[in-house]
């Protein structure tokens, strides 16, 4: 085990990187978030429908979430091991979503066919 002490410098890593971001960076991200929110509201206001609507909603949502996590929550400056530990596990939720889509289709047709649309 070559555990060189030089790679472990808690004082440096704990604070050093947060201190020096200019405020303008946050204002810029803030501006982008405003624009993206306005755009996603416009999707509803101009009543985009179908695939276009879903696509736009998802794109704007992911961009906003990405900006918040990367810059406001400082994920861009965290160690990679922390970023992976936090960002990778939620991907398993896609499996849950997939399973529940099958399940809810099944429930829908059960209701439609056997319960006459009730229940």
């Amino acid at each position: 085990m070559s555990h060189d002490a030089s790679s472990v410098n808690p004082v440096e890593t704990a604070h050093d990187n947060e201190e020096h971001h200019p405020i303008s960076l946050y204002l810029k991200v803030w501006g982008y978030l405003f624009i993206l929110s306005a755009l996603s509201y416009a999707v509803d206001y101009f009543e985009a429908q179908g695939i276009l609507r879903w696509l736009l909603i998802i794109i704007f949502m992911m961009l906003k979430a990405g900006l918040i996590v990367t810059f406001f929550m400082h994920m861009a400056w965290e160690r990679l091991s922390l970023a992976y530990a936090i960002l990778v596990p939620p991907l398993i939720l896609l499996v849950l979503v997939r399973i529940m889509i099958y399940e809810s289709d099944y429930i829908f047709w059960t209701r439609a066919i056997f319960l006459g649309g009730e229940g």
Partner: protein
Amino acid sequence: MSQAIAQNAKADDVMAGMREVAEDWSADQEVFRQTNWGKVMMWIFLLSDTFIFSCFLTAYMTMRISATLPWPNAAEVFALSFGGEPIPLILIAIMTFVLISSSGTMAMAVNFGYRRDRKKTAILMVLTALFGATFVGMQAFEWSKLIIEEGVRPWGNPMGAPQFGASFFMITGFHGFHVTCGVILLLIVARKVARGDYERSGDYSAVEIAGLYWHFVDLVWVFIFAFFYLW
């Protein structure tokens, strides 16, 4: 040629990053030793909270797909008129902007905290809390309008699928509860900052940890706004 060099440098970066991850996880000690422990704990709490909100949103998806009655049109249900034609979703849009603004002031508070500018940090945190309180107030207004005027109940509503009320009250209620807790947390930390509690140690990570929670609340709203109100 220069492109090849740039590509090489990029590959080296990725390798270095991977090596760092491998070293952290195989250190035979705590993995996140180089990161402030309070921050790591908050991140892990937020990860678990992510799963809670995802379960709510997935349940909402399931109910909405399996509903045989038409789902109420959110644009109409949440429309508000200021004397004239009703404007669709306007209150929700304002709430979104309020919450994003609060995230912006919070990010700046964290920055000033690490610069040890106590006054600006405390002021920005109180401002963030005020935005948060405004958000909760607007949500209370939205809830009462929905319950009293539109007759929406957790078990039914006049507009269509009865599952609408259950998902709405559960998801926005839980989110509103998070915002309320966040406002309280922010005020507590802001008071400590203003009082100079962190001066002796010079450790302002408490501000960043409270900030992480606050940004998460905003993050959840991004998903609720997209899936519940816009979809």
